[in-house]
């Protein structure tokens, strides 16, 4: 079975990979491109730890053949993290202790990014709705919700200045 060449934009730069047919975006990111912030919790679409942004919208990389997203813009937490310091959302998670074991954190951070791009000042219900597809087995979700509210608040304050 011949491999295929697929190219797409990964966090701002063009990447080209050679894959067996129907290899998932998750497998490509984790085993070929070193983006292990994309986690591997279930491969059934049930945990959300493999969440990436495709053209800014959250998708589950474990259910996504990489050929399906040829030519599109993929964002992972590696791409969100600035060269120096942290993204405001990452800072907010740190301050609110929005994690315990950390395995769900990358997925939650990306969802927060996508949510705030759509709705800069989400209420609690909107945050909960956005996170409904991402599981966390440690925190009970409140610290994560608080982190996202804190990120929204600081972003709004920043915008107001």
């Amino acid at each position: 079975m011949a491999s295929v060449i697929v190219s797409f934009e990964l966090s701002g730069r063009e990447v080209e990979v050679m894959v067996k047919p129907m290899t998932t975006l998750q497998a490509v990111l984790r085993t070929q491109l070193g983006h292990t912030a994309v986690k591997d919790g279930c491969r059934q679409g049930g945990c959300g730890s493999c969440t990436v942004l495709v053209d800014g919208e959250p998708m589950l990389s474990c259910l996504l053949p990489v050929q399906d997203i040829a030519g599109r813009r993929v964002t992972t937490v590696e791409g969100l993290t600035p060269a120096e310091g942290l993204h405001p959302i990452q800072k907010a998670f740190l301050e609110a202790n929005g994690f315990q074991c950390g395995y769900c954190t990358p997925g939650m951070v990306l969802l927060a990014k996508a949510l705030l791009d759509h709705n800069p000042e989400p209420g609690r219900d909107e945050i909960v709705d956005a996170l409904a597809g991402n599981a966390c087995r440690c925190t009970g979700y409140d610290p994560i919700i608080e982190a996202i509210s804190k990120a929204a608040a600081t972003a709004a304050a920043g915008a107001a200045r």
Partner: protein
Amino acid sequence: MTTESGAGLHTVGRSVERYDGVGFVTGRTQYAADLTFPRMLHLKVVRSPSHHARIRGVDLSEAQEVPGFVRALTHADVPHNVYTILGLIGVEPEEEFVLPVDRVRYKGEPIVAILAETEAAAYEAVAKVRLDLEELPAVFDMDEALAPGAPVVTHWGNNTFMYEGHECRRVRYGDVEAGFAAADAIVEGEYRTSPIEHAPLETTGCIAVPEANGRFTVHTNSQAIYFSLDNTSIILQLAANRLRFIGGTVGGGFGGKVDVIVEPLATLGAMLTGRPVRYVYSRSEEMQVSSTRSAEIIRIKDGVMADGTIVARKVTGMADCGAYSRQTPYAITKFAANATGPYRIPNAWVDAYCVYTNRTPTSAMRGFGVTMGHFAVEVQMDKIARLCGLDPWTVRFRNAHRNGDIKPHRKATADATLIETMQAAAELVGVELAPELRAMTSAPRDAVASAPRDAVAPAPRDAQEGDR
């Protein structure tokens, strides 16, 4: 006994930024299965579709033809083919095979392991292994497992763990029947709980890497890393200094990653192929075959006085161990020691059974052995309160352990703080305690005038014959 106030403390009481937090929010934290190695093989296990069966044959002929198949691991390849999870701390018997020889006892039990170049090839080969199994009757309910004529799960012939020749862990203190006779009322309850799967977001897994110097580095997300190293060393008959376990970063464990299940097979694969081997549970494997908390049935009978004082407590507890012991026999000992709850019980009787069924083996989970016991005891305390027309606080204060109280397993209570904790809790939730309760402390009973009236003089005879 003063509780520390928050004053003058640097860290306690403050929210401190976690040093590992930056790794989590940037995704740079390295979890065991994030690693990839050149020439790495993937290990997938062929699991029993039956709950209880005799293995008549395993046909690998078709599986071997799958492109990418490297080799299979069978029971014959395992140097010491028995798990020694509790053997290290002297709890016998060792009865669970790494790879079973002739019988499977729970659905999903590993039968043979397949090593292949890619995960897809491993899955295809697993799908082409033909099993010849003879179905045997299976039992899933504890009461049925203990009934005469039940299918036998263990290889020593009855469906309970044997504690020094007895079918259950036993605690005897005082004379419960005398206590019941002297009591104003009897309160009975049966409490049932189900198995619980930890379902950590990161599934159990490891990668075993052969090193040039003949050692093996095993990247694992085990919660018990040296426990795993020791057990792997025994199973593979490999000196412990030939093994280097790297881990500590666990994507959620909750007690679900102490079973030493993946490291021995992965390291064996690395030994026999000279190549790195990745063995990571899929989500459905984590749900079906990783150990769970035991289901429990707890029956409590109490003799109580009108003032809520407990004069006798008889507890019969059963934990569903599943098909193999793992850590449940140890959990039952913990259960027996805590079955009567954090209360002074002058006459106690505890029988705690570790019952085997054809369910997935159970093991550690967050205070296993004790957690469910407390659920039962605390509901029982509420029943006593309702019966005696008392509020639940009063019943708990009057029976709470104080320093010097002799527990049923004959240890004197020391550093008791239940009374002070309840007083602080009442304050936090704005409950106004009665003066009697506010005045109580954990100081030894005879040192304080207002000790509750002893309805029945406790008769702590010397340890009874046959109890040792």
